[in-house]
């Protein structure tokens, strides 16, 4: 419980820092006209940019399902992760809430394959070190990147002190690029096109000279 509270504090602190930093960053781009703006898609649609990714609650009031009368809630959990009583630590190495948001569309069919294989699961099944088993074409996601990992790896910068260098930000990797201390899809990919680096796959930073890679990797 104490542990949980510490986490919550850290999360709140990180969120506050993130909000503060994001407001101080000069943001050139917006989602308008970005690859995630579907308004011009073939036939003009409703014109709501946010609609494809962000679900509204809907206005309908529905009766409980006919076969199940005892429902505690009328809304679903979206991209849940810690709601199962049988949840175990292993699963933290699977794509979690943040990255699931991306992967539910980027499944290789509805949108380009963002994360081709189930390497996380395979690594678990074979009980190997997660970081060692990812193939070169998929960067691992949904793992904790902290000082301890940087020390253990030896070739990673400490995310709590290393600056992200994102578009004029003076924040650290942890503040600007990690989510609850975790590396997620959005650590490198700027889904809302805030940084507007042209001709990249919505990268948060131009990777010329591997600048994005070398933000974290000390090579």
């Amino acid at each position, binding site marked *: 419980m104490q542990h949980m509270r510490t986490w919550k504090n850290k999360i709140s602190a990180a969120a506050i820092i993130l909000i503060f930093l994001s407001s101080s960053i000069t943001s050139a781009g917006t989602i308008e006209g970005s690859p995630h703006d579907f308004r011009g898609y073939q036939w003009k649609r409703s014109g709501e940019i946010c609609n*494809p990714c962000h679900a509204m609650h809907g206005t309908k009031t*529905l009766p409980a399902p006919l076969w199940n*009368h005892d429902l505690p809630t009328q809304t*679903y959990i979206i991209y849940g992760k*810690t709601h199962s009583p049988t949840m175990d630590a292993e699963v933290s190495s699977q794509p979690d809430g943040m990255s699931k948001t991306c992967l539910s569309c980027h499944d290789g069919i509805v949108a380009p394959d963002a994360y081709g294989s189930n390497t996380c699961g395979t690594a678990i099944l074979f009980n190997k070190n997660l970081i060692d088993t990812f193939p070169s074409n998929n960067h691992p996601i949904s793992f904790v990147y902290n000082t301890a990992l940087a020390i253990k790896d030896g070739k990673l910068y400490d995310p709590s002190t290393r600056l992200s260098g994102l578009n004029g930000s003076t924040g650290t990797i942890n503040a600007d690029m990690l989510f609850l201390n975790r590396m997620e899809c959005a650590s490198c990919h700027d889904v809302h096109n805030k940084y507007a680096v042209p001709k990249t796959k919505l990268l948060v930073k131009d990777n010329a000279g591997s600048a994005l890679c070398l933000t974290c990797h000390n090579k």
Partner: protein
Amino acid sequence: MKKQAFILSMLIIFMGCASIPEKPAAPAATIFYPELPQRPRLQFLHSISGENDLGKKQSAFQEFLFGKNYDQLLGKPYDVAACKEKIYILDRMYKKIVILDLASKKMSFLNDQGIGRLGDPSGIWVSEENIKYVTDMQRKQVVAFDGNDHFLRTYGSREIFEKPVDVAVYGKQIYVVDMDKEQLFILNRDTGQVINTVGEKGEFFKPSHVTVGPSGNVFVTDAFHFVIKKFSPDGKFLDTIGFHGDQIGGFVRPKGVAVDKNDHLYVVDAAFENVQIFDDQGRMLLFFGGPGSGPGNLYLPAGIAIDDNNAASFQKYADQNFKLEYLVYVTNMFGKNMLNVYGFGHWIGESLPGE
């Protein structure tokens, strides 16, 4: 006494050799939807992530050679279909069809060499005649394999399809959804000719999945309109099921669809990580799965299939008071449980309160 000790020690040695390393035992808890004491309609039965989950015993020698547990694994299952004693998984990591043989308890790839080679398969349907129809986004075709899993023929071409992503077959008609053309194509199964198309007026926004019900009605997942659209066998629009939203009966990332023999529509949602069941009036009956990694939970699910032929093979996983009628398979793109097997059935135990 000596003899007894000898027999005992031999027995121990024998048992030692024969002991089979298995995945942790199936969960003791019975997962029903809805939970008891409401009348259960579905039970979570089993997860299949590799060959060993098919129940084949691994010998000590095999274990010595190949290590224990998973020698063959599923990669990223996206779609699923089944016929008697076989489950076909469309695996997006391998870009192949994986065959799970329930009789021999073996896992293998469908042989798609030569002219039948699959480039970028996305959806699969198995007809009553045990013909496999596979949409291929690279070939821009539907590739068919016969009852022996050998190449049979193709349907369509680059002139017709842009991005065929899913297929369903009913009688003499083949239904194909094309995500880029945003159309539903109806083809004649014998001639391969296009009989009709739906969606030329912009009815769909990225349609992603299609299925056919027992009476031939066609259901299309209109992914970015966040609804399921229902059509008559010849393509006449009939109804819309669901709406955009996170309330019960809504959709956020609708994906695979399936219809059972009672005209109940099953819809996978990758955001809720559940499956919602609707009756033929579009009324909500039940939802199952849910996020997490526990038994019965779903992890970025995509495909679904209803299997009327193999319930007997899975009855052993069912509660003794639950008689299975048919199976429901749901694929998970991630997580440790790749294919979840649920059973639709009937409670045969003591009477339930309130009934």
